[in-house]
């Protein structure tokens, strides 16, 4: 049996085929993620190139020809004549980049600290878990906001814009390491007393090697579920911070920035500047969230 057939017959693939919600959520996320990745090839216009913008194209309603230039924009344009569709493609790219990077950072940090706490036990464990308890008592968006604010204070003025996106990734990542660390710590404490670990210890394998090559693969299962759910949370956190005007710099607008810009035009009747980025953000966050829920149930043997 080739590997494709084996994957097709696996439990998880079966559960996927039986779940219309999971299939729909996958299709919607792919319909946003793929065009975002290939935005430079797919976008009809380059929204960040001032030379390609024509102010006469400004405020074109979606799908209608512009009154002056006759150009048609599928999703309309904003006040500067920027094509909303292209702005969404590039914006989703930035939202996804920040979301994925933040989750990756939080995940690596959480796994490392969780392994450390679970393996070492003792005061290292109690210190890390106390910190985790304290952090969990604050909402993560507040933690991200506070870290972002403090970090911005320490960065010299001329580098703030340049580093903003990285500071944002680190802030959101730091606000989300706790669930990863708790889960990994729990499973590590179970695994470290099993016979295969004791055997490795007896034959003198270095502890760092035991943890990284023997324990780590066995504690990664639940991490995948947490990572998926936290991807949705990270995307929303990024959008929220950017909407508040403290996230990505204005030169790299994400979906949150576009919604912030769109809100300004609500009263003058240009609803499309707000609506399309908002719908994209919602569809993205919702479908990733549903995928996470499905994954959690599919990987949980008790629910089968």
């Amino acid at each position: 049996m080739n590997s494709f057939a084996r994957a097709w017959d696996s439990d998880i693939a079966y559960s996927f085929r039986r779940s219309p919600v999971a299939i729909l959520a996958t299709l919607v996320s792919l319909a946003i993620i793929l065009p975002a990745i290939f935005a430079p090839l797919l976008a009809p216009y380059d929204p960040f190139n001032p030379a390609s913008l024509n102010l006469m194209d400004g405020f074109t309603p979606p799908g209608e020809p512009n009154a002056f230039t006759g150009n048609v924009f599928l999703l309309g344009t904003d006040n500067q004549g920027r094509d909303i569709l292209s702005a969404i493609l590039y914006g989703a790219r930035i939202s996804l980049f920040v979301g994925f990077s933040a989750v990756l950072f939080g995940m690596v940090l959480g796994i490392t600290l969780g392994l450390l706490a679970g393996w070492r036990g003792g005061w290292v464990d109690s210190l890390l878990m106390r910190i985790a308890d304290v952090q969990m008592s604050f909402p993560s968006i507040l933690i991200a906001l506070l870290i972002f604010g403090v970090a911005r204070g320490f960065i010299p003025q001329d580098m703030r814009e340049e580093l903003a996106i990285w500071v944002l990734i680190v802030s959101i990542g730091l606000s989300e390491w706790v669930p990863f660390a708790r889960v990994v710590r729990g499973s590590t404490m179970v695994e470290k007393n099993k016979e295969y670990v004791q055997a490795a210890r007896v034959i003198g394998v270095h502890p760092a090697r035991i943890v990284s090559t023997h324990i780590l693969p066995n504690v990664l299962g639940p991490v995948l579920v947490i990572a998926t759910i936290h991807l949705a949370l990270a995307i929303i956190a990024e959008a929220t911070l950017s909407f508040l005007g403290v996230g990505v710099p204005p030169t790299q607008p994400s979906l949150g920035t576009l919604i912030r810009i769109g809100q300004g035009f609500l009263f003058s009747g240009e609803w499309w500047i707000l609506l399309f980025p908002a719908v994209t953000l919602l569809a993205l966050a919702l479908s990733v969230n549903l995928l996470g829920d499905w994954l959690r149930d599919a990987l949980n043997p008790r629910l089968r």
Partner: protein
Amino acid sequence: MIAFILRRLVQSVLVMLVVSLVSFVMFRFVGDPIAAIVGQETSIADRETLREHLGLNDPVLMQFLGFIGRVVQGDFGISYRLQQPVMELILSRLPATLELALVSGVVAFVAGVALGVYTALNRRGVAAATIMSTSLIGVSLPTFLIGVLLIWVFAVELQWLPSFGRGETVTVGGWTTGFLTGSGRASLVLPVITLGLYQMTLIMRLVRAEMLEVLRTDYIKFARARGLSNRAVNFGHALKNTLVPVITIAGLQLGSIIAFAIITETVFQWPGVGALFINSVQFVDVPVMAAYLLLISFIFVVINLIVDLLYYVVDPRLRVDRASARH
């Protein structure tokens, strides 16, 4: 009991010390505090005298202790951007935030409990199913998007309610309130829904789950067998036992409401502390940032401490477990 309280107190004090250290380091080492105070014409000699006078040449530990001393007395320095004492700024904006948070909290709690009880008692009804599936959307919509959509529908299209600010306010003994004027109350509606919706769905789902759990227990069956009215069973017995965990969660959510007020205040240009903080992050106004950091941490630490102690008072099992564990 005393050991438990002491341990929680020590932990809270430690958290506050760490937060003050972060605030102090920001305060002291972000930019030059002297440059923020004096004008450009001040000579270097004058700057040095001022530096000496403000104690900026003292050992860092002494400066930290001095910082804590001033903070305890409510002196957070002067805002770089607005050139006003930070404490004054925060105090003038605190009523707006507290009124918003309080009304949202009460609305979320009352509506959440009512809907939760309704959906639990009419589990198979169409209305309950609709409420439950709508609540899923309420949980997944980001707060700021709820606010923007509400503005779009109720302020732009229908023009029923104002979209920004607090309306007219009345000052009662140093406290500015929007409760007493019509425009003040109208201005509260949309921000309160925005801020309270998430908490409401949370409380609703919790009440529903707890209620369903309690309704399955033997003492409820017994109460029904005794022939008590539905009303007495549902509200006198079931709801009462549901509310203990709900109240603790609701208490913990109070901090969240104050934190999420940052977002709501920005969406509705509500002149509260959260909007002040967002501005200070944008302009790197360090004294305001440091003060807000301390203030919000203090609120959270106090709420968590109270809820922990309440748990201990409310749930006798906690006391028994600890006592027997010691033997």
